[in-house]
């Protein structure tokens, strides 16, 4: 069966520090991968999506970047965090069968101080 893992689960970082959130999917190949950010009262905002290695699209201009070094690994990064980067980050995947369902990881809570 397919599983998705995110880490770290919780992160507290000072303003100006770098960030790396990792997401790995197991049990499937060539999945579409997504990074969403959830802010209180604002639902989920799509940040990046990837349909393959080195194929990453950014949805919102911001202080973050994404990379996909392997087929089933998706990384969210920042060189210098801002206070506004605080939030709950969710990684998700959709299989190649395109059922329309996104499978979400457990999320990473980032607090920037």
């Amino acid at each position: 069966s397919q599983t998705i893992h995110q880490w770290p689960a919780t992160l507290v970082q000072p303003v100006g520090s770098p960030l790396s959130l990792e997401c790995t999917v197991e049990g499937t190949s060539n999945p579409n991968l997504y990074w969403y950010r959830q802010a209180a009262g604002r639902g989920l905002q799509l940040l990046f999506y990837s349909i393959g290695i080195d194929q990453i699209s950014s949805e919102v201009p911001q202080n973050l970047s994404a990379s996909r070094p392997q087929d089933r690994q998706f990384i969210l990064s920042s060189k210098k965090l801002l206070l506004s980067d605080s939030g709950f980050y969710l990684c998700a995947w959709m299989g190649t069968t395109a059922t329309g369902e996104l499978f979400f990881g457990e999320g990473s809570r980032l607090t920037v101080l």
Partner: protein
Amino acid sequence: AQSVTQPDIHITVSEGASLELRCNYSYGATPYLFWYVQSPGQGLQLLLKYFSGDTLVQGIKGFEAEFKRSQSSFNLRKPSVHWSDAAEYFCAVGAISWGKLQFGAGTQVVVTP
């Protein structure tokens, strides 16, 4: 542009009572519609989805939703709520080919004894 509105930020319901969560969407083509549920500090889980066909769709955990094109709505219902239904619920619309879902801001459901 696509958008999703969940008019109710917060709903309190007694255990055993019925529940209805509202969702209105704006989408330029035939919409693909979803309802997800999120327990505190967790990722999202798909409750149900609508692509085409019967406008009343059944989902997991006893939930159902009805698609009404004339009203641009996709309301979620459950006849009798359980304490375990306390969570945040998100409506989403999008094109499944890319998984680029537009989420509503969510409705927090509190279940009282």
